[in-house]
């Protein structure tokens, strides 16, 4: 077992364990911390997949943006001092059974298919190539997604505003 494998299993364990903490914790703040470590684990997996730009974007956008947004959502929508922070669950046992079935089907699909897998190529920096592709082949999707993001943020600010009546 090489050092690469050990690092992969460490990041995979970090990701899965903290995702499990997210799902099975009864406290929303613990769930948010679980989500934080899941994002870091996924960023590590991106590094192992030779996607250095995506790993940095993952940390910047998810940890720096989305997670902070979710924490603000928790704190603005609940009285932190009261005991309302518990995240109740419902119908846990049937959901566990059904989701085990879904997982089994997915894993069966993964292991039964003979993927035409190329040998892993070398690690090369990807930022310059991604930038070039975004400005040439993917220019139209890039512009559309930037308009989408602008519209979504303006809409979010408009919806979240308090109504004056």
């Amino acid at each position, binding site marked *: 077992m090489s050092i690469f494998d050990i690092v992969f299993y460490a990041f995979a364990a970090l990701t899965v364990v903290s995702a499990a903490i997210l799902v099975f914790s009864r406290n929303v703040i613990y769930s948010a911390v679980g989500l934080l470590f899941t994002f870091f684990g996924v960023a590590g997996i991106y590094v192992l997949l030779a996607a250095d730009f995506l790993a940095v974007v993952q940390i910047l956008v998810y940890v720096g943006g989305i997670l902070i947004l979710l924490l603000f959502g928790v704190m603005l929508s609940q009285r932190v001092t009261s005991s309302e922070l518990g995240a109740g669950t419902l119908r846990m046992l049937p959901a566990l059974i059904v989701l085990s079935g879904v997982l089994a089907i997915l894993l069966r699909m993964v292991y039964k298919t003979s993927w035409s897998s190329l040998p892993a190529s070398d690690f090369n920096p990807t930022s310059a190539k991604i930038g070039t592709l975004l400005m040439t082949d993917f220019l139209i999707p890039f512009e559309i997604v*930037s308009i989408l993001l602008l519209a979504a943020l303006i809409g979010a600010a408009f919806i979240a505003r308090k109504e004056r009546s």
Partner: protein
Amino acid sequence: MSITLTHYLTLSAILFSLGLLCVVTKKNAVTVLMGVELILNAANINFVAFARFVDTNLDGQIFAVFVIVTAAASAAVALAIVLNLYERLRSIDLDEADSLAR
């Protein structure tokens, strides 16, 4: 035995199932959003893994960038909706949000 595509797909399948479990069972709207983010991350791992092992140009990574942008947009809008829900109901329990009337 080295790490192959199958390892990444297995990790992604486990992460997807956990995210779906979170979406299905949680009552708190913010926690459901966290489950949605887990599902999107699982899909992204698949994209990047296929970009590395099957189709070695960078299209998969570009698509992952777009997924991240869309996730940010959806999180912003969904949190605005959650705050509005809290204004109306003083609670973000999804079981209580069962009426479209103002």
